[in-house]
């Protein structure tokens, strides 16, 4: 099958572990992301789109998604969000919170402050946010390269 790359995914499934977590942890993960959307008091289409994308990846049930969306209007306290997260869901929530904070093209001071609190809560390395922001930039470059590729293919 010549179309395939030589090292197709090393035989690995969808490169995410979020959907494998227990439902209660996925809910806690989504709750933290809902909190993140409101930190800068603005909810852009890009943030909303990233938020909904992550809810979809998490495979929350439609009623759970409905409940999570209510947090967009009335965000829960950060301490409550953090208390409900497990170790794994917490790390994934941090990764995706960074991604969401960057979705509108700018991570402001309030968002950085919250991200710092999450890192501290999880006991991760001090440079985690910096590295995740770099990783997010790479991700956006990857997405842009996909758009560029489609445009190029269209020529």
């Amino acid at each position, binding site marked *: 099958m*010549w179309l395939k790359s030589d090292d*197709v995914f*090393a*035989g690995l499934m969808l490169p995410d572990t979020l959907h494998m977590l227990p439902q209660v942890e996925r809910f806690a993960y989504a709750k933290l992301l809902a909190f993140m959307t409101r930190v800068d008091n603005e909810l852009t289409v890009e943030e909303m789109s990233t938020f909904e994308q992550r809810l979809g*990846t998490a495979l929350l049930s439609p009623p759970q998604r409905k409940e999570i969306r209510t947090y967009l209007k009335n965000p829960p306290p950060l301490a409550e969000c953090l208390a409900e997260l497990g170790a794994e869901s917490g790390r994934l929530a941090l990764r995706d919170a960074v991604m969401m904070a960057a979705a509108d093209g700018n991570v402001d001071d309030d968002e950085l402050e919250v991200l710092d609190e999450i890192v501290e809560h999880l006991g991760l390395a001090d440079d985690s946010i910096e590295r995740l922001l770099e*990783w997010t930039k790479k991700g*956006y470059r*990857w997405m842009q*390269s996909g758009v560029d590729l489609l445009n190029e293919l269209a020529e």
Partner: protein
Amino acid sequence: MLPDSVQLLDEDERRKHATVLMIIAAADGELVREEISAIESCMGLMLIHPTVREEIRQCLTSPPELDEVISEMETATIRLALRDGAIVAAADGDYDDNELNILRMLAKSCGINDERLKRLLDWVNDLWHLCANGREIIASPMLGDDKLTGTEKR
């Protein structure tokens, strides 16, 4: 900002795009959690209304004919569906022959040849490397990540 254009499609085009993803997921006769997660992720990214998502999910049990769906799609939407369909098809760890046939049909219908399709599949491959690197940063590796980390192409 988030570099994507699927949110810019009108509601009907987004519905057709997601329907194509459903057809791809159903193509190999097996539906794994990873494929569903990839499709739900894409429907979320496109900001498809929850009630419309319910309707689209029904396609999994009785998927419509691909040529009927794409005959009513705009070329730009087919290309986006091809891109996202390649990710859905890869979500179970490999491209099945039926999935590849559908990707080829989509590619052909929007003027993309096999050589160019391969470049798109290579682009999908990069996602696996990128995600492994993300998991490395948060110390949350998956089995097999060691084959992918530090080997990304970009």
